[in-house]
């Protein structure tokens, strides 16, 4: 049957036909061994892989079995690199490897999965610590023995990694790719300042430098050789034929040794740089944005990246849960100009959240429940926030008659054009904005005209109120509420009119005053709908959340959250009075010796206001309790993470997240307060602390007396200050409704213990060079302030850990490891070579082909004799060796027996030795230089004799 020609053979025939010649084979003087080539590459893979994995794990202080990992990496590296040994091995091996990987993964799925989850949980915890953010998305670890599970998970990770390294090393010998894989993995701990041990770094560096040195060398051009693959592999490209060597394991090992030495010395010289702590990291926009992304990834996974919206430091118009971390840009959003009246923070309210929907606040109210607010709604089914503001203003401004109140003006200049929310100075309310009342300063007044920014400027006439603390609120009835004069009361009574029908007192919604009326007439006020708004809309809590809060409040009874149930009764009582009035009693007294009958309205007043005081006290105490609880258990963070989809924002924060920013505290606070029956609202806006005025504000030359009237702490200096307010001061807070006072702010957000971000520090490069210049090179280790310090004769000698030794150990261990690894590898190489050669020789012997075996044995003997310097010739003939060896042996014997003088003896002895050795060399000569055909017995005899010689 005609032999089918291979493609290569066909090509060769064509080439021979056209050109008369064809290059058949290119080969070196020493046959390249694919086995050792693969093994030497395994060495590189092993170093990089073990360095990366142990570096990664040690940087995170993961609990794992290092010995197992090192041995598994070695085994996996050797196995995977051997895939390039042969074409068939490559294909079958890869498939087998993948099948084995899958089967084992399925077998140990629970362990591997738990280990993997343990690693990710650990990393996420570390990241959470670093960014001071709550990490609650814990993956479940079904098996809790972390050392075991992490080790198993690492085994699978290593299996994957060695495949990757096998491609970058064995196939391409590409520095960038090899370095890239390790660098990316190492970045996970490095990013948060967790440094891998220097030992691991040296291993990685050795492998990478070695790859770099071998890159572009012919070693990188290694295809999968076939069984009889040529030493130089042929390849055609652009009309050129390339014959490329498959490489040589000796070369690779040599370069590996050079790389090890190189990386070792590099590490010695650059140790100071490596030993430096990460230190403070100045803000940088690139890092900040990457930080944000990483925070989202850590907290919410990849999903979190697709569930986000822009936020001005948590100012989201009531949208909740979509911001993982707020990163203020420190650019000015608004500029407020006013005369400071005290050191209290001024709040600028922007968004009023009334209705809570689990993921957002809405500032509108559904009209169907509040149709009696008496607003012209023009067919709409809701009431807008402006309308609520208007009602707030109408009602509350009438109530707010603060003692020692002052009035002033504030100009708010919207600098950031993208800023789309109007804010109003807090505590008092803007008047005349909607109604078109004139601003207190005409914009065209040249004396007062100021252009602060490019945005629109609005002038608000405001009435300042002293910021009231809890103590103030509890006694505000005398200051806020206008009581009818007692003379009026007397006159009312003393005019002799006696109406039996007048038997009740009614509370005026608008003035919080009280009028008398009769039960029959009912309330003199047509409606009390604003109270409906307060005691209905501002007490709404979603049912499910309400149930949760019930449990939550009970769980936190330590903070006194459960002690406010009387408040409901009192509120109900007050509302009852509000609706039906309070009964007044007819009493008699003697005035000027005459019996006077009068209504004891004072008693009724006292009752009402005592009731209001009690209610307010409860409300403020409840706020204090919540604040205390937040302070104790819920830290503030700018990076709280997102709320997963479908989760209730408040519940997730209270139950799982347990860290948050202002909107978390405000929302949760409002919900807890409402749950307790306290009317509360969620407000977003800005806060202007006095520190901003003292640090950032510009003193203007405007006459402050036109902007302010009354007394302030800085009375002598009524200067208008222009205060830039950046998004860092955006804020969310709680408003509670205090009886007789209206809506007052309450700060539930605990203070932040995070380092305040700094806007404009030294640039990254500047800092880098400054750090470089400040690098302590550590050469003063033996100086006065070093390891041993003797403080006093009587005090024990304090011996600190010798840092120098520690540093040395860092270098010695990796060096020993590399040297040890190379020695082990070399010994393995020798053993395997010996085994392979013996197998080959036995094959030859079986075939009856003794020449190569005899030649090899002869060579071994010659090498040995050369090593002992018995033979010096380069390629000695067997008989020459026989002569030299016989002479040597004779001399040796004679030296021992001290009979050197006897020439005759020596000659005889020589002849004797020669004749003893002769058969061995004669056999060699016959086999190698003649047509002599040996048989197995003769060979065996020769081999035994040779062994005796050797």
């Amino acid at each position, binding site marked *: 049957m005609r032999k089918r020609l291979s493609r290569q053979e066909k090509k060769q025939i064509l080439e021979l036909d056209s050109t*008369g010649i064809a290059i058949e084979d*290119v080969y070196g003087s020493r046959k390249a061994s694919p086995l050792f080539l693969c093994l030497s590459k395994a060495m590189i893979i092993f170093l990089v892989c073990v360095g990366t994995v142990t570096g990664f794990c040690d940087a995170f202080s993961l609990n794992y079995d290092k010995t197992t990992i090192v041995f598994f990496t070695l085994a996996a590296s050797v196995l995977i690199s051997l895939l390039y040994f042969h074409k068939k091995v490559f294909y079958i091996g890869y498939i087998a490897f993948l099948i084995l990987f899958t089967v084992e993964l399925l077998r140990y799925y629970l362990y591997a999965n738990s280990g993997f989850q343990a690693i990710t949980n650990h990393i996420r915890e570390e990241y959470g610590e670093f960014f001071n953010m709550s990490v609650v998305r814990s993956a479940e670890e079904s098996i809790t023995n972390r050392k075991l599970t992490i080790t198993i998970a690492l085994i699978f990770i290593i299996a994957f990694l060695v495949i990757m390294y096998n491609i970058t090393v064995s196939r391409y010998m590409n520095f960038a790719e090899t370095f890239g894989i390790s660098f990316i993995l190492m970045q996970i701990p490095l990013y948060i300042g967790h440094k891998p041990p220097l030992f691991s770094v040296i291993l990685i560096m050795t492998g990478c430098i070695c790859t770099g*040195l071998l890159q572009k060398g012919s070693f990188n051009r290694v295809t999968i050789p076939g069984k009889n693959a040529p030493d130089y592999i042929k390849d055609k490209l652009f009309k050129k034929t390339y014959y490329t060597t498959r490489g040589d394991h000796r070369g690779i090992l040599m370069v590996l040794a050079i790389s090890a030495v190189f990386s070792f010395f590099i590490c010695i010289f650059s140790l100071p740089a*490596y030993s430096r702590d990460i230190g403070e990291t100045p803000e*940088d926009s690139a890092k900040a944005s990457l930080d944000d992304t990483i925070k989202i990834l850590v907290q919410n996974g990849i999903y979190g990246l697709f569930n986000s919206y822009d936020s001005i430091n948590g100012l989201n118009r009531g949208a909740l849960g979509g911001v993982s971390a707020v990163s203020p840009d420190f650019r000015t959003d608004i500029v407020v100009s006013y005369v400071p009246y005290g050191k209290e923070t001024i709040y600028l309210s922007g968004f009023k959240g009334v209705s809570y929907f689990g993921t957002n606040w809405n500032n509108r109210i559904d009209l169907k429940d509040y149709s009696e607010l008496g607003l012209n709604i023009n067919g709409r089914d809701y009431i807008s926030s402006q309308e609520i503001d208007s009602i707030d203003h109408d009602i509350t401004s009438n109530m707010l008659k603060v003692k020692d109140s002052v009035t002033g003006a504030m100009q708010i200049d919207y600098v950031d054009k993208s800023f789309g929310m109007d804010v109003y100075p807090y505590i008092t309310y803007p008047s005349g904005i909607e109604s078109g009342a004139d601003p207190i300063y005409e914009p065209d007044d040249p004396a007062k005209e100021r252009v602060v920014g490019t945005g629109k400027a609005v002038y608000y006439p405001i009435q300042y109120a002293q910021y009231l603390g809890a103590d103030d609120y509890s006694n505000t009835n005398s200051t806020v509420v206008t009581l009818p004069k007692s003379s009026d009361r007397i006159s009312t009574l003393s005019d002799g009119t006696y109406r039996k029908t007048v038997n009740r007192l009614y509370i005026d919604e608008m003035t919080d005053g009280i009028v008398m009326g009769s039960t029959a007439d009912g309330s003199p006020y047509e409606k009390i709908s604003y109270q409906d708004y307060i005691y209905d809309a501002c007490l709404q809590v979603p049912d499910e959340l309400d149930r949760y809060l019930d449990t939550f409040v009970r769980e936190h009874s330590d903070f006194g959250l459960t002690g406010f149930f009387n408040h409901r009764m009192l509120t109900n009582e007050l509302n009852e009075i509000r609706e039906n009035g309070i009964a007044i009693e007819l009493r008699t007294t003697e005035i000027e010796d005459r019996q006077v009958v009068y209504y004891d309205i004072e008693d009724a007043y006292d009752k009402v206001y005592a009731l209001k005081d009690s209610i307010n006290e409860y409300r403020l105490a409840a706020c204090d309790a919540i604040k205390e609880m937040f302070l104790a258990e819920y830290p503030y963070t700018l990076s709280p993470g997102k709320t997963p989809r479908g989760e209730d924002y408040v519940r997730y924060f209270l139950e799982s997240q347990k860290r948050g920013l202002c909107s978390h505290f405000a929302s949760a606070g409002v919900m807890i307060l409402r749950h307790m029956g306290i009317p509360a609202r969620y407000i977003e806006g800005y806060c202007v602390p006095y520190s901003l005025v003292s640090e950032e504000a510009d003193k203007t030359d405007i006459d402050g007396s036109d902007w302010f009237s009354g007394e302030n702490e800085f009375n002598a200096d009524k200067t208008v200050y222009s205060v830039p307010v950046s998004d860092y001061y955006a804020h969310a807070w709680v408003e509670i409704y205090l009886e007789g006072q209206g809506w007052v702010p309450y700060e539930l957000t605990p203070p932040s213990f995070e380092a305040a971000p700094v806007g404009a520090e030294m640039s990254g490069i500047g800092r880098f060079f400054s750090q*470089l210049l400040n690098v302590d090179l550590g050469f003063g280790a033996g100086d006065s302030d070093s390891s041993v310090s003797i403080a006093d004769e009587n005090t024990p000698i304090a011996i600190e850990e010798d840092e120098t030794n520690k540093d040395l150990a860092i270098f010695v261990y990796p060096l020993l490891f590399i040297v040890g690894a190379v020695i082990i590898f070399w010994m393995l190489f020798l053993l395997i070579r010996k085994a392979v050669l013996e197998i080959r020789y036995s094959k030859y012997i079986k075939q009856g082909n003794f020449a190569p075996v005899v030649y090899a044995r002869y060579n071994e003997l010659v090498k040995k004799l050369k090593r002992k310097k018995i033979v010096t010739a380069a390629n000695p003939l067997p008989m020459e060796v026989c002569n030299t060896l016989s002479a040597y042996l004779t001399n040796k014997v004679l030296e021992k027996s001290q009979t050197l003088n006897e020439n005759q003896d020596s000659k005889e002895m020589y002849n004797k030795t020669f004749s003893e050795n002769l058969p061995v060399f004669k056999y060699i000569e016959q086999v190698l230089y003649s047509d002599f055909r040996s048989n197995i017995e003769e060979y065996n005899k020769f081999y035994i004799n040779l062994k005796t010689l050797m």
Partner: protein
Amino acid sequence: MKIHVWSIIKYLFIFILIFFFVVVFKQNYLVFLLFPYVLLPAVLIPVFLINVKKISLTGGSVVADTEVGNNILFFAEYDNPTYYPFLKCSLTFSMNNMFFSTDKINLLNINIMPKKKDRINISVKTSKIGMVVFEGKGMKVTGFMGMVSVNLPVSFSVQVAVFPEKKENVDVAEIPYSEGYDEYTEPDLKGNLSSDIKEIREYRPGDRLARIHWKLSSKLDELAVKEMERTSVMSLVVVPELEKSNISATVDTLDAVTHELAKRGERFEICLFNSVSCSFDYYVIDNEESLTACYRDMYFLPLYESADMAKEAYYASNQKSTLLLSIYGDEVKLLEDGIEVSLN
């Protein structure tokens, strides 16, 4: 020296990446990765440039000539006296049969190990006669990560002639014996020998008695023979047609004919026609060496397309000899004054 910008850019890219991490992400300890990055090229490239000049590479062949069908073993031998390993050396070489030369370029990528002198063997299979030339055209040695490369002026040319296969019992019975003109019987006008002695050589069996230099022989104690300078062409001139498509067959036939003629003791000349310079070279074939020399020269001659160019040019150039043995492929024609004489 050539600087490879793209390699440097790629290298710098990684450098910048690390630098970026150091500066932007404040991983100041990564500075120590920058050290090897700067150090590696800074150290290795100068070392490379110093050492690269010391390496040498030559070419050679194990045999000087061979028969067609045999393999020729060429080798490239490098010598690196330095301790620096050159892991990417690319030898550009051509391997051509001069009759069928192509512009094909081969590149041999070698790893030159430190302190080593080694050979890379190139085994070439032959299928046609001709001069196989292994020509080194330069060696490019690339330094660390391909950033710089140096072109070494490696230049060598190794020639191995591929002769036709020796054929036993070639049947050339059709070729007639010429009547055996010698320097005495030869007519004046044809194939004259001058009286000048070209050389004195030792006697070989078959030499005519008249050629023996008796005087000298008596002095030397061995027979010396006078080789006379020819003044004109020999009586029998063998003219092979170096036509491209049939060159192998032509040379085969030529070889058979020359051996047969030599066996018969026939004196003859091979006349080779250079189609480019339109000139003729004559080779007196009286032994194997002269035939080899003739072949060697013939292998460098340009081939042509026509089947009778040499023959026609021969007569057109008014050459003296009238008896001409024209060989083309397997055909052998005997011509006398341009007219074919029947060999039978």
